[in-house]
Structures are given as structure tokens and as C-alpha cells.
């Protein structure tokens, strides 16, 4: 069981690292594309489509890690005035609701992935992209986001145990 948890943690952090690599790749790709164009040569036709897809992958791959590091912004303008026990109950409802909602997104995105793979659907952009590559990160990442909220729900950690500065990343 311990090995499974460790593997899961490696996956969670690995996906976040991949997200960082992808966004840096976007920077490099755009600079190379514009430089090629400026030099009067023909830039690769895939830049636009790849950047667009990477923006989605960048977002999805980092999503579970952001839940783990309490990086998703929330508003505590009301809950901060609640008494401790009520606050805890409200927090548990939030965790449960979030876990269920993202689990629904995970299953539905898996269905979309399956359909686009079987039917060989194409997304027409600056180049034709296989549509399954759009949905590919979603089932896994939404499922992991759901698991992260379940961690909070069972009391492994508390999402609200941060100062406002930590929350805002400053």
C-alpha cells in the first residue's frame, strides 16, 4: 500500500513538473517560430495548434498538484466568521462536493476520450489535430483532483490551513 501511495505522489509531482516543462516549451516554440518568420523562412505550421493544446495540458497536469499544495484560490469572507465545528462541517461538505464533481468530470472526459479515439475524430485548427489528444490528460487529472479532495475529506490534511499571503503565493 505504501508503495502505491509513493508511486501516486511521484505521479502527482511528475505531472506538475511536466506542466512546467510544457509551458517553457511554449516559450521556446514561439520564439523559434517568430525568429524563423523574421528571417524570411517558413515557420512550422503546427505552432499555433500545439500552443493551444499545450495550454490545456499545462492546466490539467498541474491541477492535482495545485490541490495538494492548496494552490487553488477560494474566498473565506464568510467562513472565517463561523464557529470551529460548523466550519469543519462546511469544509467537509466542500471537499465531498468537489470530489464528486471532479469524479463526474473524470468519467465524462474518459467517455469523450474513448469516443474520439474509436471514431478517429479530428479537431480542425491551423493543422488537423487528433481530438483524443485534447481529452487525453483530462480523465487522469480530474480523477487525481478528486482523490486529492478525498484526502482532505478523510482528514489527511486541511485545505484551509494557510495564511492569505501563502494562498496568494507572495
Amino acid at each position: 500500500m505504501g508503495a502505491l501511495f509513493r508511486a501516486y505522489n511521484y505521479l502527482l509531482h511528475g505531472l506538475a513538473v511536466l506542466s512546467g516543462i510544457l509551458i517553457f516549451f511554449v516559450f521556446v516554440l514561439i520564439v523559434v517560430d517568430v525568429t524563423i518568420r523574421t528571417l524570411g523562412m517558413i515557420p512550422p505550421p503546427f505552432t499555433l495548434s500545439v500552443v493551444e493544446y499545450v495550454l490545456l495540458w499545462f492546466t490539467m497536469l498541474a491541477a492535482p498538484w495545485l490541490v495538494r499544495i492548496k494552490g487553488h484560490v477560494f474566498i473565506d469572507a464568510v467562513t472565517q466568521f463561523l464557529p470551529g465545528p460548523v466550519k469543519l462541517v462546511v469544509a467537509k461538505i466542500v471537499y465531498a462536493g468537489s470530489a464528486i464533481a471532479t469524479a463526474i468530470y473524470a468519467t465524462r472526459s474518459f467517455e469523450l476520450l474513448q469516443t474520439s479515439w474509436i471514431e478517429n475524430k479530428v479537431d480542425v485548427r491551423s493543422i488537423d489535430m487528433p481530438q483524443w489528444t485534447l481529452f487525453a490528460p483530462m480523465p487522469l487529472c480530474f480523477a487525481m483532483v478528486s482523490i486529492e479532495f478525498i484526502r482532505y475529506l478523510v482528514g489527511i490534511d486541511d485545505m484551509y490551513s494557510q495564511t492569505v499571503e501563502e494562498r496568494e503565493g507572495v
Partner: protein
Amino acid sequence: MEWYWALATLIGMVIFFMAMGTPVALTFIITNIIGALIFMGDMAAWSQIVDNSTSLITRFTLGPVPMFIMMGALFFHTGLAIRVFDGLDVLFGRLPGRLCYLTVAGGSLFSTLTGSSMANTAMLGSLMVPEMQRRGYNKRMSMGPILGTGGLAMIIPPSALGVLLASVANIDVGKLLVAGFIPGFVLAGLYATMIFLQIRFNPSSAPAYDVEMPPISERVKLVVTNILPMGLVVFMVIGFIILGWSTPTEAAAFGVLGVVILASLFRVLTFDALKASVEATVKVGAMVFFIIMSSTVFSQLLAYSGASAGLLEWATGFEVSKYWVLLLMFIILVSLGMFMDPTSMMLITVPIFFPLAQQLGFDLIWFGLFVLMTFEMAGTTPPFGLLLYVMLGVAPKGTTLYQVASAAFPFLVCDAILIVILVFFPSLALWLPGQM
């Protein structure tokens, strides 16, 4: 269902879940799931909402957001930000209130280079407040200019929030970014005037002190080496867009390249700085994009349920001046801003306010800038303006929220003055985009 019930149900759900402390992105996801069941009738609609959630996030126009964040993060983590400050420091000599002016000048420059209000306020707060306190500045004078200048980042390009707003509202990203340029610097001028007046009426609030001035050659050298090179980065971003040499996404990538080149020239580009900057980009960029992704369907549900069209018809049915409607939108935005972060406010109000503004005959680029200005004001409005809390976090121990909020007040007046100027002289914002 009548449009007003549909509107109340959808907006009510978002506000209810947010009030419970649900992460903003998850608030939209839960609302989408329930909203799809209510308005589309069955669970098959859930596949549709997941499919539709990918539509906005995969737009090339959103590209500048992570690039601007990376640029700002590199600027901080390599220490280039401090060099700019050192360069500006020598320019102000023995001027009374010099640290306040330094804050406005430095903050305006940081704004152009980072585009993050939160980071601006945090950095200026932690850098300047202790020094100002040491020099005998009162709390109002030490915190006010920082809070005001922190918000400048929202309108002075490159503004990450500006890119988000333009993408969500479906208006020209480049034009909205450029529209903030002149009003941003007018606002910086208003802040400087406000500081001058405050010191004039209460000289002890920011006492003058002796500063050891380096020789003129040294000062020129500092300006040339520490400030002017940053002009290259500003040009790479704003200049490229205005001259039509590149799209905002490409200009933003070249902004990052500009900071990388400068950091290399100054020999401050390290692997750790690069790693920290990419990490900051993932933290902030992916978080904001996850919200955008989750909220895409929300605006579609507003349209599908008839709430947007109904509200539009109702609001334009009154025989009142369009400026009264504008004032009402302003009040709603500032009120929401007391409790919400700008991204959430934007995603709730854009699907309703932008069609309304278009129907009323406002230029949408101008209206976009107006909305950004309002966000800026909302960020420093008590009791829950986010910038107030960021400042409270970096201010000396014992500082109260009341002290922070009252320090921000004169600068909120400046913001209001700029909004009035923009209403009477829209060309202040629209002239530069008109040249593109």
C-alpha cells in the same frame, strides 16, 4: 423558467458555493453540473459541458498570461527588480517624501515588467515599508502609495488580467493591453500629485532626510545600466504589439526572452532562478487557467437558460442615460470586489456586462479598461480587498486593517478621478489602440 429565476439560480449557486469556501474553479464545476441538470434536463448534458470546457482554454490569445507571469517571476527571482529600484533611488535626491515617489516610479516600472498586482504590492510592501518606517514616515504615507501603485499593474501593459478579460469578453487582446498604457501613466501622475498634496498639508508625515548623493557620473551610470536596459523588455512587449510586428502572445514570449537576455548579461541567470520562475508560472498560471476552463460553461449556461438575453432586454428597456447603467455596473463590481478576487468577478460579470455595454453603445475596448480600473479599486476596498490583506501581511506587526484601508483611501480617490476623466475623454484610452 423565467430569465430572472434562471439568472438568480445560476448566480446564486456561484455565490453560495464561493461563500462556503469552495475553491473558485470547483465552484464553477459544481454549478455547471447542477446547472446542466436543471436547464438541459438530463445527465447526458454532462458530457457536453466537459467537452465545451476545453473551448476557451485552447485559444492562442490566452498565451500571454503564462508568459507575463514567467516574465515577472524571472524579473523577481533573478534580482533584476532590485537593480531597477537602486537605479531609481539615486534619481530622487533629497526630495521630501522621496521614498513615496520612489514607490510610485518603481511600482509603475514593475507594473510594466510584471503585470501582477499581488506580486507588486507584496514586493513593494516588504521592500519599502520598513525603510519608510525607519525614516519616520507615518503609516498612511508608507502604505498608501504602495497600495495605489500595486493596482497599477492591472492596467499598465503587460497586464495578465487584461489578457484574461479580453479573451473571456472576446475583444482584441492587443488593443486592450495598449489602451491601458496612457491612462496607467496618467494614474501614476495622479498618485504623485496626491503624495505632493499630502506632504504639503502634513510635512511631518514624510520627513525629509539627508541622503548621500553619489557623483553625477555614478548616477548616470546607474541609470544607464539599471533602468534603460529594462526599456528593451518593455519595447519587446508593448512596442512589438503597437507596431504590429507580433501578436500579444508572441510579444509576451519575447518579453520573457528579453528578461532572460538581460539576466544573462548581468550574470544573474541561474538554474535556480529559472526553476523558481517556471514553478511560479505553473502555480499562478495553471490555477487561473483551471478557473477559466471551469467557468467557460457557466457563461454558456447563462446564455442557454435565457438569463443573459432576458437581463439585456430588461436593462436596456429603461429610459435612462447609459451612464447611469455604467454607474450601476461600477457599484456592482466594486461591491463584488469586496468579497471576490478579480478573476471570479470577471467570469461572473463579463457574460452579462459586455453585451450590455455593447448594446448601450460603449466602445468595448474602453469598457474593458473601465472594468480593469474597477477591479483595481475593488482590490483596495475594505473589508475584503485582496491587496489590503497582502499589505497587512507584509506590514509591521500591530498594523490594523483600518490603518491599511485609510492609507489606501486617497489613492482610491485618484482611481475615481481617472475613471471620470476616461468617461469625459475616452480618447485617452482609445487613441493608442486606434494607431494599431
